[in-house]
């Protein structure tokens, strides 16, 4: 892209859009800093004016933004594992839990310790990373499927262990009364009624994480991740140590989740096993898929939007519906009472459909990265003329259907795990 833009620049007469794109390509961190500052300003101002102010007060909005930030962070971390490296981690909430409990032990009346917040962010992340390495080291030598089931099991047992070790974790009650972070200069107090400080800190964390991840993605390590995702055998043949590279991605994902966990524990002031069940991992997975695997800003935007839809829109729909006082429909055997429907109950059903439909029709996500898009649609490009492959079919569905040539090529492309390759 940038080479193209540079050529266009030499010819003179660059459009402002192209100039911006060129700048963004060459000064990525600065672009992130600038755009996140704009986002920060918007998030501080928009809740005070219509239409957002009409929905709820600004304090709940700041609170929702800070919570959304937690999920943005989680989704960006999971994106490193799933999107960049192509490993399916289904127990991501476990690392979130480990970060949360690490903070709970360091800052609660239960343990009687009160350690400062900012260093604990690093410590909690590091503890989660250690667990990530411990889990990843034995599994990452194996095929990706096994990692999926191992992480699923890990995500399942971590809350169970926290639940069962009630002498040390207070079981179902969880650890409550966790101390909030101490006031920071310029940002102010961290309290439940003024969540503004949490939002600002979260914005900082997300900005830094995003800048770091973008730099990593464009580095040697990032290219190695992509190579492994596309074809592990070829990557290994080209001298990439696939085990350590995958382990790095896995540990980095765990680190990010640990960071989010520390922040979340300090904000909620209570941690309990029920906050980390499989539903959380699944929500984050849905966010990554919807946002577009492998595209960092896309995933962040996806997580932000999905969280707000889930926590604000569905709840608002409920109160809106209650305000309408619709009568129940009673048509003989069919009894339909809209008042009995709780919209928030359906979010997981929607996520399930979203995952399936996205995989079938738009595997590159709603905000795809250019490279990922091409990779996932390579079948179409290789399939040849439009009379063989129906053009109106946007997914990889039709593309791989009838033509034997396309099947062969994509079989090659799908990597060592593709059917027919390893039998």
């Amino acid at each position: 892209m940038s080479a193209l833009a540079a050529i266009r620049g030499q010819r003179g007469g660059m459009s402002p859009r192209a100039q911006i794109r060129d700048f963004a390509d060459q000064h990525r961190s600065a672009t992130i800093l600038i755009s996140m500052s704009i986002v920060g300003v918007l998030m501080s101002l928009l809740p005070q004016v219509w239409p957002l102010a009409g929905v709820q007060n600004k304090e709940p909005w700041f609170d929702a933004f800070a919570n959304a930030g937690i999920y943005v962070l989680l989704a960006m971390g999971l994106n490193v594992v799933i999107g960049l490296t192509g490993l399916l981690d289904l127990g991501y909430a476990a690392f979130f839990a480990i970060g949360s409990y690490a903070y709970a032990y360091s800052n609660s009346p239960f343990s009687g310790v009160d350690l400062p917040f900012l260093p604990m962010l690093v410590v909690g992340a590091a503890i989660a990373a250690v667990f990530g390495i411990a889990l990843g080291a034995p599994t990452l030598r194996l095929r990706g499927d096994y990692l999926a089931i191992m992480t699923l099991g890990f995500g399942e047992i971590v809350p169970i262990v926290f639940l069962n070790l009630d002498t040390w974790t207070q079981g179902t009650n969880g650890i409550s009364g966790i101390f909030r972070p101490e006031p920071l200069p310029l940002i102010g107090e961290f309290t439940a009624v003024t969540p503004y400080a949490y939002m600002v800190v979260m914005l900082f964390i997300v900005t830094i994480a995003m800048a770091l991840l973008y730099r990593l993605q464009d580095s040697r390590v990032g290219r190695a991740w992509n190579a492994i995702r596309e074809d592990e055998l070829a990557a290994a043949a080209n001298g990439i140590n696939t085990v350590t590279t995958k382990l790095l991605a896995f540990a980095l994902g765990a680190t990010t989740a640990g960071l989010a966990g520390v922040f979340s524990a300090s904000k909620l002031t209570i941690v309990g096993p029920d906050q980390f069940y499989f539903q959380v991992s699944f929500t984050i997975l849905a966010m990554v898929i919807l946002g577009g695997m492998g595209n960092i800003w896309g995933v962040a935007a996806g997580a932000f939007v999905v969280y707000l839809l889930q926590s604000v829109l569905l709840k608002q729909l409920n109160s809106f519906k209650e305000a309408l006082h619709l009568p129940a429909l009673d048509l003989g055997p069919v009894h339909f009472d809209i008042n009995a429907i709780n919209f928030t109950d359906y979010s997981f059903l929607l996520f399930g459909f979203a995952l399936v439909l996205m995989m079938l029709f738009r595997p590159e996500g709603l905000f795809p990265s250019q490279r990922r898009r091409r990779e996932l649609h390579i079948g179409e490009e290789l399939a040849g003329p439009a009379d063989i492959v129906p053009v109106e079919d946007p997914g990889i569905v039709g593309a791989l259907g009838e033509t034997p040539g396309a099947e062969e090529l994509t079989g090659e492309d799908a990597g060592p795990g593709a059917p027919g390759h390893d039998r």
Partner: protein
Amino acid sequence: MTATSPAVAASNSLTRGLRVIGLAVGAILIYLLVLWRALEFASELTAGNTMQGSLIAALTRFDDVGNAYLAQALQQTVNALSIGAIYALIALGYTMVYGIIELINFAHGDIFMIGAMLAVVFLGGLLHQQEAVNNIPILIALILGALVFAMPIVGLINVFIERTVYRPLRNAPRLAPLITAVGVSFILQNIVLTIAGSGDRASPQIFPLDAQIPFGGAEISILSIFIFALSLGLMLGLQNFVGRSRMGRAMRATAQDQSAASLMGVDLNQTIALTFLLGGMLAGAAGVAWGLRFGFVRFDLGFNSGLKAFTAAVLGGIGNISGAVLGGFIIGFIENFASSLGFSRWSEFLVFMVLTFVLIFKPSGILGQLTGDRA
């Protein structure tokens, strides 16, 4: 390969069958012995009797007190066989699907859950049968009816999922069908949640629970034996189908090499659909058995049981039918051992540890063979 006469082949398979039975009986006896000693040891420990609480003392004492624990151990062993049989039935579906299209079908546990729900619908909803039935022919008819009702529906649901969702993704990058399977699992769970609610649904326990065989002071549940026998019958039927029939041969060929099989005239789509049908039907049978045995069903039942059954499939060697059965029973025994000693809260943890150690030390499983990239 030299041609063997049918008589020799028959006697070979007979000796092989006898050997398998011998090994199984031996393993069950060893489990019985270990559980007996462990139960006695644990009770000595809790009694605080330190002199006899030593491991060696517990392992070498055989007297009347010990015999009471033997009876208890026998009871638990039969229970372990029945729960192991249920896991084995579910594990078969995982292993068959994995063997043929290399997909971890995360939705399979939920298929099992739907089977259990359908048994509730059939027995409780359609026949209004809530209490235990003591008339044996009617009981058998009811259970057969529940199986005939649940198994085809669940199998067809599984085929429908394969047809609509997995088939279009058969040649996609391998992450795509996996993620889809997770999505399907959530869809199934939430549909059932919407219909049946989030609490436990009572499943009619039509099999009288007090039907027991007194044996040396213990009461051995006939239901457990029944479930074990039923599962064994289904497994032998499957083994026979896959090993002997034409379609079974097509399945094995497809599992070995899809493109070669299709060149030999095997209809891939039909064979894969058949695999999903069989796997779903077995999961449906497991669901019916679960309802009879435990008396409750919940929408998220499939998640936990599915994870255990998958562990069983990996433990036995994924893609291997006998391995899945073996793994199912081993997981059943492990879980039963934990709960007999009062650690049922930790059974998930134990199963996960088993999965971890298998993947570290023998990723191909007990009966699977290491084939390059597969493990």
